[in-house]
C-alpha cells in the first residue's frame, strides 16, 4: 500500500539548493534543535524512545536503547557513521550531499540528549562533494552559534569534526570506524566489550549512530515521538529511506512508510520503482544490502518491515533493494558479491580472510566454465565453516559481521538455483546472456 505520510528526512529534496544554509533556515532549519534545547536531555531521550526509532545503519538496533547503554563518564563522544559502503546502498550519500545541515542538526540534538562532549562525523572519503558540503555546513553551524562553546545561548557546548574516510568498507562497522577515526587501519575490535557505549573512541563511552538516524531527530523532537511511532507498524516505526537499484525502470531513493508499503509496491508502483525493466519477469531480489539472503517473487507482498523480513530469513539491513530480472546469471551475481567481501575483508579472522577468497575463486571457475559438480557441496561446506549451520541470523566465527555475510549470496544462489549452477558445469560456460549496458 502506498500511504500518504509526512516526508521526514527528504522534506527539502524538491529544492535544487536543498544543501544550502539559506534553504535550510527558510525551511525550518534548527527549529528542532531550538525545541530540544528548551527541553531537558532526558525529555529528548524519552521522545526518541517513544518514537521507537530503529538505527538506520543496517543492524536496526533501537537508537534510544543504544543511548541508554552509555557508561556514565565525564567524557562522552558521539560518532556519526556516514561511511555508507554496503553494495547498492546510496541513501546516506544522498542525505549527505543534499541536506548536510539536517544531519548536523540531528547530531547536535543527539549530543545534547546523551551529554556528548565532542562529536565526529565520519564521512565516506569517496563522497568528495558531500564532504565539502558537510564542511561548509559545519562552518555555517559554528557561525550561527549552533556549534561551539555556548549553543544558541543554552550553555550547552559541543564541537563537531567532519572526518574523511579513505576507502574501506570495513570502516562501516562501528568498531572498525572507531579504529579508523583513531588514525589506524580499520580493524574491527575484539569483543567484549561489546558496545562502544561502554568503551569506544579513545576508550571513552561513545555512541555511534548512522547519518539517517540523525536526520530523523529534528522531526521527532518537533512533532513528538508519538507522531513518529504512529507511522509504520510495531517496532518498524516511522518512514525510512529505501534505495532501489538493479533491473528496475526507476532506480532511486524513496522515503516510504515502513511496514505498510510492500516490496511489490516499491518495485512495481508507477510512482516508485515502475516495475522490472522492459516488463521482464522478476527472478530474485536482494532485500537489504549485499549481505542479506535473497528474496524471490513469493516474498513480494511482504511489507518493508524489519521483523517480518527477519522472520522470513533475511534482513532489511541497510534498506537497499536490488532487482534481478530473468536474464540475470545468478552465478555471476553471487560471484560479484562474494568478490566484494573477498576484497574488503580486513584479514584479521581466518574464516573470513581465507574463506572469502576461496569461495570467490570457486564461484569464478563455475562462471567461467571450469567448475565441477562437487564444487556446489564444497561451497556449501565452506560457507558452513564461516557461519556454522547456515541459519539466519548467521552464527559468527569472526570478530565482525563481514565474515558471516559471505555465505548470503552463495547459499541463496545454490539453494534456489542449483540447476543453473549445474548448467554452468555441464555446458562448460555461462548459459545466460551477458549483462546489457544501460544507456542514459
Amino acid at each position, binding site marked *: 500500500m502506498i500511504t500518504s505520510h509526512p516526508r521526514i528526512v527528504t522534506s527539502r529534496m524538491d529544492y535544487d539548493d536543498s544543501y544550502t544554509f539559506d534553504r535550510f533556515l527558510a525551511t525550518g532549519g534548527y527549529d528542532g534543535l531550538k525545541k530540544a534545547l528548551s527541553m531537558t536531555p532526558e525529555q529528548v531521550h524519552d521522545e526518541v524512545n517513544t518514537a521507537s526509532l530503529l538505527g538506520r545503519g543496517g543492524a536496526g538496533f533501537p537508537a534510544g536503547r543504544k543511548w541508554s547503554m552509555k557508561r556514565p563518564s565525564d567524557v562522552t563522544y558521539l560518532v556519526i557513521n556516514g561511511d555508507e559502503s554496503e553494495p547498492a546502498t546510496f541513501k546516506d550519500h544522498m542525505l549527505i550531499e543534499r541536506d548536510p545541515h539536517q544531519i548536523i542538526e540531528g547530531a547536535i540534538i543527539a549530543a545534547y540528549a546523551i551529554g556528548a562532549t565532542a562529536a565526529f562525523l565520519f564521512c565516506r572519503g569517496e*563522497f568528495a562533494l558531500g564532504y565539502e558540503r558537510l564542511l561548509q555546513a559545519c562552518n555555517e553551524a559554528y557561525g550561527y552559534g549552533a556549534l561551539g562553546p555556548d549553543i544558541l545561548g543554552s550553555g550547552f557546548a559541543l564541537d563537531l569534526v567532519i572526518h574523511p574516510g*579513505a576507502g574501506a568498507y570495513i570502516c562501516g562497522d562501528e568498531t572498525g570506524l572507531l579504529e579508523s577515526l583513531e588514525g589506524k587501519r580499520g580493524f574491527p575490535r575484539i569483543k567484549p566489550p561489546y558496545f562502544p557505549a561502554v568503551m569506544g573512541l579513545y576508550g571513552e563511552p561513545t555512541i555511534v549512530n548512522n547519518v539517517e538516524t540523525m536526520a530523523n531527530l529534528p522531526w521527532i523532537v518537533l512533532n513528538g515521538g508519538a507522531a513518529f511511532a504512529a507511522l509504520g507498524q510495531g517496532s518498524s516505526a516511522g518512514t525510512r529511506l529505501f534505495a532501489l537499484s538493479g533491473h528496475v525502470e526507476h532506480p532511486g531513493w524513496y522515503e516510504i512508510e515502513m511496514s505498510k508499503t510492500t516490496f511489490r509496491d516499491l518495485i512495481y508502483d508507477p510512482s516508485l520503482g515502475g516495475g522490472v525493466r522492459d516488463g521482464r519477469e522478476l527472478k530474485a531480489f536482494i532485500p537489504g544490502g549485499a549481505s542479506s539472503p535473497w528474496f524471490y517473487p513469493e516474498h513480494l507482498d511482504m511489507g518493508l518491515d524489519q521483523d517480518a523480513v527477519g522472520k522470513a530469513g533475511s534482513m532489511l539491513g541497510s534498506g537497499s533493494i536490488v532487482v534481478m530480472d530473468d536474464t540475470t546469471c545468478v552465478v555471476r551475481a553471487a560471484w560479484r558479491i562474494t568478490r566484494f567481501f573477498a576484497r574488503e575483508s580486513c584479514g584479521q579472522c581466518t574464516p573470513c580472510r581465507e574463506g572469502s577468497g576461496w569461495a570467490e575463486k570457486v564461484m569464478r571457475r563455475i562462471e567461467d566454465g571450469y567448475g565441477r559438480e562437487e564444487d556446489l557441496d564444497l561451497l556449501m561446506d565452506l560457507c558452513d565453516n564461516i557461519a556454522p549451520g547456515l541459519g539466519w541470523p548467521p552464527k559468527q566465527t569472526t570478530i565482525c559481521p563481514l565474515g558471516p555475510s559471505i555465505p548470503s549470496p552463495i547459499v541463496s544462489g545454490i539453494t534456489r538455483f542449483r540447476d543453473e549452477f549445474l548448467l554452468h558445469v555441464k555446458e562448460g560456460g555461462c548459459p545466460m546472456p551477458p549483462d546489457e549496458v544501460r544507456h542514459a
Partner: protein
Amino acid sequence: MPDGGLSAENRARAEAIVALYPQARSALVPLCHLAQSQHGYLTEASMEDIAKLVGCSPAEVRGTASFYDMLHTEPVGRYVFAVCTNIACMLAGAYEVLSHAEERLGIRVGQTTHDELFTLEEAECLAGCDKAVCVQVNHRFFGPIDEEAFDQLVDDLAAGHLADTVPPHGVLNRVSRAVGLPAKAAKAAKAAAAGDAGDTPPNGSRARSGT
C-alpha cells in the same frame, strides 16, 4: 623529483587539522588526504612529515595508508577513473563499460597512461547505484555511463572542459574547516581566567590547548 614533503602552507593547514582532535594520531588519514592534494600521491617525504605531526613512525603512516583504497603510495595519473562493477552496476553492464574503458585508454585496470593523464581502477560500490553504471573521476561522480558517455568523459577531461568539477587527483575538498576552536578548550580557558579549573576533561581526552 616530485618526492617532496608538505609545503609550508600545507604544514600550517596540517597543524590546524591536528588541533581539531583530542589525540593527534586521529589526524593521520586527513593529513594523508592533504598530502595527496599536494602531490597526487603519498611521497616518502610527506609520510615522514605526517609521522612527525601525528607522533608515530613513517612506517606506521605507510602501514595505515596502505589499508585504504583512496590513498596511493605510488604516483597515479592526473585523473583517476574508478569504474564501479559491484552488483547494481554490473547488472547495468559495468564489465562491458570497463572493457571499453581499457580499450579506449589502451591500459588495463590498475595502470596509468604513458602521458600520466589517466589511471583506471575497478571500484567497489560507490553508492551511486541509481545512476549505474557509476564512474568516479578523482572521486567526483558521473553516471549513468555507457561506452559513448565514457568516451565523451575522456575527451572532456583531456580538453580541460571539466576543470571546475574535477580537481587534480588527491584534492578531496576545496572547503576548509574555517571556524570552531575546540569549545572545551575555549571554555576551560575562560574558566581558568575566572579562577575555576573545574571544567577540564579528565585523562587522555583533553582537548588540545593553545589553538
